[in-house]
């Protein structure tokens, strides 16, 4: 069946290329005939639908690509009564039907009167390739580019004539390059003579990308000069990619480091500066993430236009909510327990369980959906380096938070008082600083920072009551490794651990990598019990 499709497509492409290279046949076929072919899309299993797509493409009609596009996106329905393929549009509780070929109004029907034409991955691929060959001559360069990319993926020898025609007419150099590459992959899949294939290997090899490597790898097993050329080209691409791979791993490491930094920076204050072993730190992160969820829910229901700003709105709120809860915990529990680390550990662990269960009771045990604003979705390429927007923003955000916190601690009165209390509590008290309130607000600051970390972390992970537990161990690891009481230590510690973890992962695997990292930290702490940047001061010596 698939062979038939390919044959039909090939025949049409050759015909159209040979007879009418410029004729953009608007309506190459009469409406009833086209409708009959379109109705075939609703008959039989996936194999039959694939054949029907081939038959549609073979008509060369201009309307085919938009109909296929609808099929691919799952918007094509069939009327159950007479098996006629229709387009639907929701209108109240009913559906408004239109004819996909003529665009004629077919009246209103209840939802149960139609059913969706099912497509699976294979059909979506077929559709993408078919639309690709059909839209190679589109007026929009972006459409032509994606068409060429779709054809490149399909590796379909029958597309060569269409590509030749398109390349000859292509004004845009960039798009032309993609088309030439697409032609090369098609040539590799065809039974053209060896010389053509050798040229094709060279064209693909010159691309130097991972996709190009993937295409060449299929042919490295071949005998003769083509196989040899493919092997040579593949090796040269691989060596070129080696450096990119290393860079990619480091970029992952920096990204993981920024996540660790965000999670740990609040703890660097509550644990690092104040010396409170705060097991409820992760829950502050979780509360920040849930604040984001609530903000997004409210925006979704009352002001959908603001969705792209939801994170910016959530940031101050998360800081206030988590910070407020932090102050509350400090005033009600922790202040009775200063200087008793074991009891603090147990009490805050209890608080963490209470907070988890409270969130579970209010929001339910299931994950909550926090959406990515458009400016945080997708990825972009720098050379062969793929960088996702959400990760990039998190790196930037973590550094901004770090700088902001430094500023607060070094340049404000509150920061001065905090540092004074940390270094020598009784002296600070004698100088008139209200140490209990400084404690409360410092704890609140640490918790608030954890809250805004939660806003960022909601973009890359789960939002569930267990969110905080995943970060608590890592946070402690970073703070202890970096040096208790030193924010720079936290920054360097987070980045070191992140990059080390990511460099190790490809070789040792995720599980062993994590174990090795822990072993490394244990050994390191043996050698330097106070971490990378040990704080010198009377309080520490005491």
């Amino acid at each position, binding site marked *: 069946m698939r062979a038939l499709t390919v044959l039909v497509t090939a025949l049409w492409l050759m015909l159209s290329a040979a007879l009418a290279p410029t004729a953009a046949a608007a309506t190459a076929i009469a409406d009833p005939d086209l409708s009959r072919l379109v109705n075939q899309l609703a008959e039989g299993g*996936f194999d039959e639908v694939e054949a029907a797509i081939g038959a549609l493409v073979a008509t060369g009609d201009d309307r085919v690509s938009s109909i296929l596009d609808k099929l691919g996106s*799952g918007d094509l329905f069939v009327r159950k009564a007479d098996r006629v393929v229709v387009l639907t549009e929701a209108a109240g509780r009913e559906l408004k039907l239109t004819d996909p070929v003529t665009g004629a109004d077919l009246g209103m029907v209840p939802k149960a009167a139609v059913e*969706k034409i*099912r497509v*699976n*991955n*294979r059909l*979506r*691929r077929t559709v993408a390739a078919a639309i690709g060959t059909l839209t190679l001559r589109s007026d929009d360069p972006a459409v032509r580019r994606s068409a060429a990319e779709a054809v490149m*993926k399909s590796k379909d020898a029958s597309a060569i004539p269409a590509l030749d025609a398109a390349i000859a007419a292509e004004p845009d150099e960039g798009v032309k390059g993609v088309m030439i590459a697409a032609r090369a992959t098609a040539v590799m899949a065809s039974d053209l003579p060896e010389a053509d294939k050798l040229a094709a290997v060279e064209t693909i090899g010159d691309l130097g990308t*991972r*996709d190009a490597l*993937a*295409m*060449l*790898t*299929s*042919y490295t097993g071949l005998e003769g000069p083509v196989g040899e050329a493919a092997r040579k080209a593949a090796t040269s691409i691989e060596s070129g990619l080696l450096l990119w791979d290393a860079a*990619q*791993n480091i970029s*992952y490491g920096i*990204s*993981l480091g920024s*996540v660790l930094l965000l999670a740990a920076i609040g703890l660097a204050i509550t644990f690092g500066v104040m010396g409170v072993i705060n097991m409820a730190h992760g829950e502050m992160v979780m509360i920040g993430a849930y604040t984001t969820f609530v903000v997004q829910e409210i925006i979704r229901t009352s002001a959908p236009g603001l969705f792209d700003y939801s994170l910016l709105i959530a940031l101050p709120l998360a800081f206030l909510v988590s910070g407020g809860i932090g102050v509350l915990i400090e005033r009600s529990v922790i202040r009775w327990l200063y200087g008793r680390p074991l009891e603090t550990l147990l009490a805050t662990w209890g608080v963490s*369980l209470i907070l*988890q*269960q409270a969130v*579970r009771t209010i929001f*339910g*045990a*299931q*994950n*909550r*959906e926090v*959406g*990515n604003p458009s400016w945080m*979705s*997708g*990825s972009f390429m720098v050379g062969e380096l*793929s960088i*996702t*927007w*959400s*990760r990039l923003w998190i790196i930037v955000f973590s550094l901004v938070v770090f700088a902001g916190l430094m500023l607060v601690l070094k340049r404000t009165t509150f920061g001065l008082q905090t540092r004074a209390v940390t270094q020598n509590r009784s002296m600070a008290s004698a100088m008139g600083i209200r140490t209990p309130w400084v404690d409360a607000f410092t704890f609140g600051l640490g918790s608030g920072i954890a809250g805004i970390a939660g806003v960022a972390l909601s973009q*890359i*992970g*789960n*939002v*569930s*009551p*267990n969110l905080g*537990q*995943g970060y608590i161990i890592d946070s402690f690891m970073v703070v202890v490794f970096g040096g208790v009481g030193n924010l720079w230590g936290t920054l360097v510690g987070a980045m070191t651990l992140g990059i080390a973890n*990511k460099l190790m*992962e*490809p070789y040792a*695997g*995720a*599980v062993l990598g*994590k174990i090795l990292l822990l072993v490394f930290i244990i050994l390191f702490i043996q050698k330097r019990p106070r971490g990378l940047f040990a704080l010198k001061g009377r309080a520490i010596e005491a």
Partner: protein
Amino acid sequence: MTTERSTAGQTRATRSLMGALAFSLLSATGLSGAAAQEDTIKVGVLHSLSGTMAISETTLKDTVLYLIDEQNKKGGVLGKKLEAVVVDPASDWPLFAEKARELIEKEKVSVVFGCWTSVSRKSVLPVFKELNSILFYPVQYEGEESERNVFYTGAAPNQQAIPAVDYLAAEEGVERWVLAGTDYVYPRTTNKILEAYLLAKGVAPEDIMINYTPFGHSDWQTIVADIKKFGSAGKKTAVVSTINGDANVPFYKELGNQGIKAEDIPVVAFSVGEEELAGLDTAPLVGHLAAWNYFQSVDAEVNATFIEGWQAYTKNDKRVTNDPMEAHYIGFNMWVKAVEAAGSVEPDMVIDSLIGVSVPNLSGGYSAMMPNHHITKPVLIGEIQADGQFEIVSQTAGLVVGDEWSDYLEGSKDLIADWRKPLSCGNFNVVTGKCGG
């Protein structure tokens, strides 16, 4: 019942917080006394309501309560009302065993519906054997077990994993496989079975990549990039995912962000259902697959009725249904039918009468309890849609019998389980003719 009583108590004493607290304390302690009255049959519910597994298990607790509610509306069982006894083992494996003992010894329940993870099932096994009670286990698992006191209503590997691999090979022409899983017993055993199966089908060892990650793994950048790299060897590649629970959301988000589309590298998952997708924007995931024995989108009248009743019971018209819920639906109805056939809740009699019981499943057919304590089910493959539901793209022609001892593993391929008398054995070796005991 438990929950209803304490909320009623709380509303009566809303005048002061202290009063309410005192009252619910009283009603909680008074409950065991009130529940001691006869003419109810007690049903134990052993699902975590707190801790990491609460995310999945809370729904199952609600499901059992809903099923009991429905059954009581129909007049209960053997003329008696059913009464739920809910305990919270808090995702703590040893606590599962303690709570199971409490349910059977102290509360004297006739049957228990519970557990999710394999380790929790293994932890309660000795208790159920010692006290001779009945456990219905509703989750897909790795197989390699058949116990007299346990009835497995979830899928064995041959009812989920192997049909999924067959679908990908036949329909998508996949030749290269990534087996990615969370590092614990279910993924490890399932992947061992799948690896043996793929090798037996002629897949080259270098075309199989196996990858494990810790529980709750959240940084998937490297692994997704590795999958991308592995998939760029010129052969059609697919990922078979036994990644569990919490780790799925960041995994799928990373796939979406790195632009891996289902058309390029499809991911078929065994632990991702409607509940898990509820926490995700599924638009970038359209076309990725899952293999289950039930989807909420199944087009059957019995399913529509179930969903309607469930959403009315939970007073939430967005509440989704999923495969383990269907397993409890089947298991609960099997138990009711077996008790009515036996005329008693006596465990030995119910265990014997359960074998051969056949009840409607939610996909419009019937499921039967086999002598190996596993059930027959259809296998469905669904593709994720933008609305968070699955579209069924493949369904096995008939029902598949759960295979407790995998045919693809050395050491278990000669074993069978048959709990009918006189054999009554969970691991009978057909070669040596001996029961392993």
